[in-house]
């Protein structure tokens, strides 16, 4: 029995050390890459001071093209949106952006009605993309708060990287290996952080537009606003087009600029019900550039 227990302990210990060591190297490699947005913000050879940044989920990523805005308005912008996320991640990304010694004059926050009304704060599908930064307090604190499970996989990766690396092996291990061969590789975004859906779409017939009144409830919106006030950032809330909806925000604080494009375009410019296609992106970005209220 003693021999068995001893052997199990020795093998488990050695394997544990080995797996954690390899996982640490994997995260380190990923951390020095530009593969996901958090690493891109940290490592890409870009400016430190921006006129504006676009922050949001997939709608932020695919609706406003910063290259087009920069060229039209002679500004310096960056898209730091990440798909499949919500205001909780946006707040983390904003913190991360500033911790990476970057700053912006204006923040264009791309919102969705379902996110603004939500009061359920939990881990988003793509939050693992911050895993390589888990040693930073603001990231580990975020994981600790957002992971509702008893066993907090991402948070515990701070101490035992194998936990998160093994669980998200497809999303972490293989991109990390990929960056060995191409350090500048980006995961579906260009050099300014933009991504566009293809030029086909829902091709639905005209949809009747319905009004929807939205009351802002999400406390992470307030946190972002507070962060902006504290860092002297002008907050611009942008509502991207939604198929068949006209959103009316009823309680956006008065100091915030709201640009509401929810009913701006026809169905042929949509990729699906909530995302615009490539043509739609160009159209929306142009319309956004023409909005006088955010350009001062």
């Amino acid at each position, binding site marked *: *029995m003693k*021999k*068995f227990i001893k*052997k*199990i302990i020795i*093998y488990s210990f050695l*394997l544990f050390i*080995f*797996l954690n060591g*390899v996982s640490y190297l994997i995260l380190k490699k990923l951390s020095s890459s530009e593969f996901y947005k958090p690493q891109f913000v940290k490592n890409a050879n870009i400016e430190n001071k921006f006129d504006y940044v676009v922050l949001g989920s997939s709608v932020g990523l695919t609706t406003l093209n910063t290259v087009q805005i920069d060229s039209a308005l002679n500004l310096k912008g960056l898209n730091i949106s990440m798909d499949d996320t919500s205001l909780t991640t946006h707040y983390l990304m904003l913190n991360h952006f500033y911790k990476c010694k970057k700053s912006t004059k204006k923040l264009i926050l791309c919102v969705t009605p379902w996110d603004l009304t939500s009061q359920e704060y939990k881990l988003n599908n793509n939050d693992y993309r911050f895993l390589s930064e888990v040693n930073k307090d603001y990231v580990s604190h975020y994981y600790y708060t957002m992971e509702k499970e008893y*066993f907090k996989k991402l948070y515990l990766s701070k101490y035992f990287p*194998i936990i998160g*690396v*093994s*669980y*998200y*092996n*497809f999303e972490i*291990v*293989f991109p990390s290996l990929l960056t060995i061969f191409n350090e500048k590789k980006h995961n579906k975004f260009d050099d300014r952080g933009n991504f566009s859906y293809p030029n086909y779409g829902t091709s639905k017939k005209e949809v009747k537009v319905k009004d929807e009144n939205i009351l802002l409830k999400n406390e992470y919106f307030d946190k972002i606003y507070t962060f902006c006030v504290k860092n002297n950032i002008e907050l611009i809330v942008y509502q991207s087009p939604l198929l068949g909806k006209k959103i009316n925000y009823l309680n956006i604080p008065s100091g915030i600029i709201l640009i509401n494009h929810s009913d701006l375009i026809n169905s042929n410019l949509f990729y699906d019900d909530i995302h615009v296609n490539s043509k739609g992106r160009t159209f929306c970005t142009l319309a956004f550039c023409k909005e006088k209220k955010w350009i001062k």
Partner: protein
Amino acid sequence: MLFNSLEFLLFLPTVFFLYWFVFKNQLRAQNVLLLFASYLFYGWWDWRFLSLIIASTFLDYFVALALQKSESPLKRKYLLGISLVGNLGMLGFFKYYNFFVSSWIEAWSSVGITMEVSTLNIILPVGISFYTFQTLSYTIDVYRKEMQPTKSFIDFAAFVTFFPQLVAGPIERASHLLPQFYKNRTFDYQNAVDGVKLIVWGMFKKVVVADNCAFFVNKIFENPEAYSSGELFVGMVFFAFQIYGDFSGYSDMAIGLSKLFGFDLMVNFKFPYFSRDIAEFWRRWHISLSTWFRDYIYIPLGGSKGTQWFQIRNVMIIFLVSGFWHGANWTYVVWGLFHALLFLPLLLFNVNRSHLITKSYGWLDFAKIGVTFFVVCIGWVFFRADSLSQAFEFLDYFFRADSFDLDFFTKQNRYFLTFIICLISILTLVIIEFIHVVKKEQELRFSNKIVVLLLIMIFFLGSFKNQLDFIYFQF
């Protein structure tokens, strides 16, 4: 509780410690511990269903004692009948009630008569088919006077609920497992090491092979018309390895866990995809179930004795019952029928045992292995499909053989990566098993280095995020 869950990672060392350190050399206390650990293990899913196991345990315990006391053939038959009706009644109600009701309604509606019979919202208790058959084997063996009933309720209850094999087998015979609860168990180093290796091997098969293959299988079977013949073929092959990795992986883990507690369970799979015909396949696949059917249904029906018509009837019954055991759906019945039709020619030409004579593998044998594997894969289409129409639709598109491109597996980086992992893991499995087949080894043996390699593969290639329940839990 799943073997590949975090709870089990805490559960196992706790039970192991109590078993070998606190209750060492205390047979009764060890059996009580195993019983309560098993109840906890099972109740983790849904504690309400514990009542069914406890009811089944009480029923067969007292029926067996009554059988021992009674010499009257008629009374003995009644007692056996009580056990059969009680156990199969529970199984029938929970597993087949809705199926029979909806089939009945459909049958009448096909002749234009509409019936208003409502189905019930019944949840299938995990593992009911497995423990029901296990307890039945006890009553039947006592009825046949092939074993003495136990007087210890604890021993019997621990046998019925023994957690390593409770929910997905192997379906143990009372005559093999129950006596192991009577004997003092001493810790055997080599046995425990073999157990750990089997657990790692089973985990590899489940988490790396089965769960990665499931990623594609689910997509392809959901919408077969969207795929080329080549993609459908890969989907079929991946399902063959998914179900094998899933089910035999569980069996390996069950056998390995039992070894840690000093128990010996029967081998449930002997490298079935190296079978040279269907008869051999059934001697290598889910052995505990096929031998159960052989001993308790096929042989009592007359087996391969009697006229050819009798033989055909018996084979048809055994395969149809086997199909039906797997689930309340016509797809399983057709799967059983398909295997019966493949098996019958071998029986009728008296070559269903030829593989027992041939000792070594020649080139012709490898061709036979390929053909057998292919027909088994065709059968799996019925097993996996949600309905018969979906299965026929799948096969229709597959046999059109219009295109053999594999674009689906390369259209996204993620898909391509998963595809490569599936191929690597399947290849690892096949190579390891092939070495054992060539060496004619019945049980897996490999070095510590291989175990470490498998563990590394589990951690870095395992599908933890898309983890699935074991398929056989539903049966």
